[in-house]
């Protein structure tokens, strides 16, 4: 079933896009990540222009993170105060990312930047996840009880100015590292078309030492707001959000996420993390291969601007 995309200006197979949304939604529900890091490359692979893929996926991530956020909110597992401070950084980061995106696109280096970011981030994070989860699996095999971290208030970077207390996350921390994390995630997220959950969760856990009870919910809310901003910024500066494409992805995504979440209940946490780590690593390797292998055609065409447009 072919459907014409009004912004991408080409027909796509509707069932293919729905199916992709479903599959990525399944993975995102299973691992509790947005799945943008898989969806954006897939869309580019089937011929959607990168700018439109990145901008439209932002809409899909926002939709799927809202359903996640709502269910964590009901369980009281969100720290809105921490999200508020993170957002100070993300607003600037997202706006900067969208501006950098336009500039890189014009200069013809957007694809390279996206590929390099994917290779570095995905390989790095993927490797860390694989190693960490293999250790956890080995520990549980040897019958050693897992190290339980006592739930208590922690202090991080309190030497810096603007120290704040976040009672829900059980941390006391300077606002500077929090804003810096928000800035970085907002910037990368809007350029790479990812929600950044797989970056934010480790950052919250290992850098800020946020209580594990609120990590996923907080990351979910932060992703939701950042991606909503990214949609608006991309639409305003690049006119690259294809609502028809975004809606198809959203529908597939939210349905797939439900089944993914059910499947994940029957799996162990460290096994899930190992699988996710392998998936992340594989995507990173895929981008690395594209970068180093001689392309089929070293030349490419891009329309810079239309002379007369009716």
């Amino acid at each position, binding site marked *: 079933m072919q459907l014409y995309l009004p912004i991408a200006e080409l027909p796509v197979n509707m069932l293919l896009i729905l199916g992709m949304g479903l599959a990525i939604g399944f993975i995102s529900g299973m691992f509790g990540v947005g799945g943008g890091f898989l969806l954006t490359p897939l869309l580019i692979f089937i011929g959607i222009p990168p700018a439109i893929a990145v901008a439209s996926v932002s809409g899909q991530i926002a939709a799927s993170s809202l359903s996640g956020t709502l269910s964590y909110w009901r369980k009281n597992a969100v720290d809105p105060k921490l999200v508020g401070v993170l957002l100070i950084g993300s607003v600037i980061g997202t706006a900067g990312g969208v501006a950098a995106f336009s500039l890189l696109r014009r200069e013809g280096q957007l694809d390279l930047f996206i590929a390099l970011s994917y290779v570095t981030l995905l390989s790095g994070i993927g490797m860390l996840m694989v190693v960490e989860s293999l250790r956890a699996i080995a520990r549980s095999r040897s019958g050693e009880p897992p190290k339980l971290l006592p739930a208590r208030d922690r202090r991080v970077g309190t030497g810096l100015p603007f120290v704040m207390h976040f009672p829900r996350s059980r941390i006391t921390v300077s606002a500077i590292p929090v804003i810096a994390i928000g800035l970085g995630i907002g910037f990368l997220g809007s350029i790479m078309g990812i929600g950044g959950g797989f970056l934010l969760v480790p950052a919250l856990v290992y850098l800020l030492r946020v209580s594990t009870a609120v990590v996923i919910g907080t990351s979910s809310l932060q992703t939701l707001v950042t991606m909503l901003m990214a949609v608006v910024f991309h639409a305003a500066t690049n006119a690259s959000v294809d609502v028809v494409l975004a809606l198809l992805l959203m529908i597939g995504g939210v349905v797939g996420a439900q089944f993914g979440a059910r499947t994940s209940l029957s799996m162990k946490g460290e096994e899930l993390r190992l699988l996710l780590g392998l998936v992340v690593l594989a995507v990173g390797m895929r981008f690395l291969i594209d970068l180093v292998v001689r392309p089929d055609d*070293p030349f490419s*065409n891009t329309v810079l601007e239309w002379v*007369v447009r*009716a």
Partner: protein
Amino acid sequence: MSRIVIVILALLAVLPARAETMVTSLSTHRLQITSNFVGSEIVLFGSIERDAQTISRPGGYDLAVVVRGPRALMVTRQKTRVFGIWVNTDSRQFVEIPSFYALLSNKPAAALADRELLARQQIGVDAITAITPRLGPDPAATPAFRDALLRINRAKGLYRENPTGVTFLTPNLFRANIPVVPNTPVGSFEVDIFLMSGGVILARESTNFEVTKTGFEAFVANAARDHGVLYGLAAAMLALFTGWAASVVFRRD
């Protein structure tokens, strides 16, 4: 104005033999893209009128129909290997390049006329002029960029030649099917019809058609272009609604 000059020049050039005229008609002047658009076709009909004194052409008539899509500033980039990875290192911009080009004829372009005439009238993909304002660090490499531009657009189906695209129904009545590809650019298309015989242009007609989005597609595209912020807010609302609806439908707790 320039068109009048061309017509006068053409008249002067072939005056003694010029007695043919053409009457042509397109099946539509406005092709509308709807949500189920997967490419389409516009049919051109034409008849060759000849007055009584005109001698009959020994080689018969040839027809070349040239279709050009909206023009654009295009850039062709070249990747080379830098520190082991492939990076865009060199590029050429080409001004006013047709985003779509099709030559429909009753025989291959090379058999219609000599290269000079084909180049002057821009008949055939290889005859498309590609002007680049800046030659870059290596001017000698520019032809390679021009070739790549044509080659890639051919591979995408945007530049095409069909040497059997014109059918003669009778010796004086012809039909050409103009393809509108699925990934067609949107805008105004020019159609130039050349009546030729023995490598000489006998008559020339021009017409045009419009490819536009319609209904919902047009509404979305216009909103995205003219009201970016509002469009973005609407897209954000759509995301919120879908996410909320999913959490209501699938709520288990």
